[in-house]
């Protein structure tokens, strides 16, 4: 049997030490009526056969299309050294660093990741990551509810709808009032958001750039949030955060992000990581792990998991969250990716992505009937309206080797002709040109 080393002789010796006759005797306590009624799994296969089968399955996915899909999940270049370093099994076969002396590698890496996230989002505290951006947003919401002891949450409709549906599911049993403020032609409706903040408001949740790609400054909105002693929560796109005005500068109390775009392959939806950062006043409400710096008996610097008294293994039902893991390996990928690109590399990545998106916007809106949906500055993603249904256009162009973007009608009623288009530094001007010409021919 693969991966089971005991020889028949060794098994016999071990059974003898235990004082039973057979392996079956070890399972005698399982009553007959609890034994499996069936166990029709297939027979095992050789490693070669499994690899062949999986390669065949993988080949049934098409990944050679030119894609303008984003919607919060972006295909950025990942330096080769990320995979090389992550393949160190001391990292990927370790468990949670509960024995700090034997886990300094993981712990220092988490500490460095926290530092990187705190700097990128420009808030002083960061945790070691949670499952994904949607979970980070939901946990941020609960932080605000605990801190303010209020139950009203104001959400911008220009927040990624994938996160909005997650918030809906998670809060079903929690007696929270979720109020969604409609977008205004793809702009976050700051005026309407500001108008409904009151003394019962726990949090206001906005996103920058918003789902339509539009870049905002929420400073004034957050001032109003604070006048009502509510919590300002901002969801961000971490690649662009290397150039955009920061959540910290705007006065956000909690900033979160989907970390996928820095170092994680798209991998059909996961594993990714949820980035969480917050102000000092909220740090004890923040769920998840944190690595902290300390010293050993000789004064040597070392790192440990800290503030664990908030967590489920001590607090049980009174814990700040039930989360008891972080996306450690994903966080490490993000950290290594950031280190390899560095300050200049990240700025260039953001700059190229924004430049290509503006080139694409120019090319596409030169086609009759294609118009920019959202006014004002945008980053690497923008929405257009087509003269026809976007679902149909996507269907036709996919056939020609191009996924032209995400259909806004999927989440926004009335925007059936809307198409959300993303570019990264991997998108070439040539690809954009071909896309524009094919689209022109299709319409």
């Amino acid at each position, binding site marked *: 049997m693969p*991966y089971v080393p*005991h020889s028949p002789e060794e098994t016999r010796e071990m059974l003898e030490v*235990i004082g039973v006759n057979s392996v079956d005797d070890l*399972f005698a306590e*399982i*009553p007959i009526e*609890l034994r*499996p009624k069936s*166990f029709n*799994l297939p027979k095992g296969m050789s*490693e070669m056969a499994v*690899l062949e089968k*999986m390669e065949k399955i*993988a080949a049934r*996915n*098409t990944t050679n299309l030119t894609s303008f*899909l984003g919607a919060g999940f972006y295909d950025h270049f990942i330096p080769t*050294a990320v995979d090389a370093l992550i*393949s*160190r099994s001391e990292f990927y*076969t*370790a*468990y949670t*660093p509960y*024995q*700090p*002396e*034997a*886990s300094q*590698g*993981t712990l*220092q890496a988490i*500490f460095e990741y926290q530092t990187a996230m705190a700097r990128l989002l*420009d808030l002083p505290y960061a945790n070691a990551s949670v499952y*994904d951006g949607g979970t980070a947003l939901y946990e941020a919401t609960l932080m605000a509810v605990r801190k303010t002891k209020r139950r009203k949450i104001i959400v911008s409709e220009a927040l990624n709808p994938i996160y909005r549906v*997650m918030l*809906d599911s998670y809060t079903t049993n929690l007696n929270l009032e979720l109020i969604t403020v409609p977008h205004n032609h793809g702009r976050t409706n700051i005026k309407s958001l500001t108008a409904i903040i009151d003394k019962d408001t726990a949090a206001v949740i906005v996103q920058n750039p918003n789902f339509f790609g539009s870049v905002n400054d929420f400073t004034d909105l957050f001032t109003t949030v604070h006048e009502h002693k509510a919590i300002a929560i901002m969801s961000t796109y971490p690649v662009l955060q290397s150039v*955009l*005005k920061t959540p910290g*500068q705007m006065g956000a109390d909690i900033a979160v992000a989907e970390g996928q775009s820095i170092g994680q392959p*798209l*991998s059909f939806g996961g*594993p990714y990581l949820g980035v969480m950062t917050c102000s000092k006043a909220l*740090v004890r409400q923040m769920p998840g792990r944190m690595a*902290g*710096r300390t010293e050993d008996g000789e004064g*040597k610097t070392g790192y440990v998991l800290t503030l664990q008294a908030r967590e*489920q293994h001590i607090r049980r039902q009174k*814990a700040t*969250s*039930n989360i008891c*893991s972080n996306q450690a*390996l994903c966080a490490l990928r993000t950290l*290594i990716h950031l280190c*390899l690109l560095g*300050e200049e*590399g990240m700025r*260039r990545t953001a700059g190229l992505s924004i430049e290509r998106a503006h080139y694409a916007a120019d090319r596409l809106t030169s086609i009759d009937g294609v118009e920019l949906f959202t006014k004002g500055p945008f980053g690497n993603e923008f929405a257009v309206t087509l003269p026809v249904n976007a679902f149909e256009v996507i269907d036709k162009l996919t*056939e020609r080797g191009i996924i032209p973007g*995400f259909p806004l009608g999927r989440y926004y009623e009335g925007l059936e002709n809307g198409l959300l288009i993303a570019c990264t530094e991997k998108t070439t001007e040539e690809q954009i040109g071909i896309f524009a010409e094919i689209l022109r021919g299709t319409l």
Partner: protein
Amino acid sequence: MKTVFKKSVPGREGVWPEKPKSKIEDFIPADMLRESSGMPSLSELDVVRHFTKLSMKNFGVDSNFYPLGSCTMKYNPKFTEQVAALPGFARLHPVISQLKGAGRHCQGALEVVFETERMLSELCGMADFTMHPMAGAHGELTGVMLIAAYHRDKGNKKTKIICPDSAHGTNPASAAIAGYDVVSVESHDGIITPEALAEVLDDEVAAVMMTCPNTLGLFETHLPEIVKMIHEKDALLYYDGANMNAIMGKMRVGDAGFDVVHLNLHKTLATPHGGGGPGSGPVGVCEKLTPFLPISRVKKLEDGQYYLDYDAPKSIGYVAPFYGNFGVYLKAYAYMLRLGREGLTRATENAVLSANYMRKRLEDDYEIPYNRICMHEFVASAVKQAKNGVRALDVAKALLDKGHHAPTIYFPQIVKECMMFEPTETESKETLDQFLDDMIEIARLSDSDPDFIKNAPTTLSVSRLDETKAARDMVITDDIE
């Protein structure tokens, strides 16, 4: 070792893309931009050496025996890494399957989701599975949300969830975060008795969360009666799959009467733990709970084509942005294919064999509070050693000096000076013997030279760290003084 930020040399070139032709200010007003984000400037070799050196300060399963109880630190076969890295999987954008006509471009991925759900359903005897939950605790939360949806749909007014005192801390935490009051049931001689359960089981109980074998490694021998009692109250029975490695092929939780189960694929099905994640926590349900499973579901047409079904009016909705940690459960799927039904059964048999062998060999030198046939793990106690001032923590640290990872300590909380060992099936007898010899030597040294044990570890990059200082100072980034 300096942090990577302290090694930064301004101007040093990393893995940079080409320079953009225009300035960002050409597109976005300058007052909506920031100055430096404080990322380091390093060469590729700087980065490679920094992280290689960091990795050398870690214990991992490939380098060290890792008998961490309740964590199932088995060997992770290398070929599964190659499977997850196949470009056909790694480069697939998750929303592609939601586009009209694009389903044909991700048939392979949908097949993986569908087939993994079928295999897990058969492994556990459940009607169906969802792959969406992204970790074990996330599976628990999803499971409790399913339970809540079931009762809401039936018009049941249920407010409580019962967890044994030996339960993983995540069980009560998940129940509480889903909006339930948590009630504890005391174990007797290590297990739950019908009498103890009867004292707390009333009409307001929505579910009972159990694991079997429990966290003491003991089989819940009253299970059939407990199942009956719970179902009579129209409460549901939840199975915490953390201990699934003990029962593959020997018991199926669905057959045994459990209504909901989550699995920790990084435990039982050999996906790497990654230093704390990413995990994958799929949830299985019995027939009556299937309408409530999260959106979306992968369905198969008669012609063999797969598609995503969003039509589920009773569903609890979305617990993940897409279909869970695909890149993780892909490895579990490949592992199941490799082992097949005999291999998985054999894994369980050998996990239980090794645990009992260890228990037996330690019984003269350490207190074993429930010294009878255990399943895949067992609990020992350092109470004998504690008389000389050597506590479970000290034994754990001494093991690190011997090159072994420590067992789980001080859990479950109901055993004093608790040490929980789980060897897994993949460790050889020589490895177990070396570890056991070292444990016995530590017990002897606890008598003859307790200070030696209390000063451990002395061979690692740091000695014992001051956790109180860390918690009081809260220095969690390089920028906090």
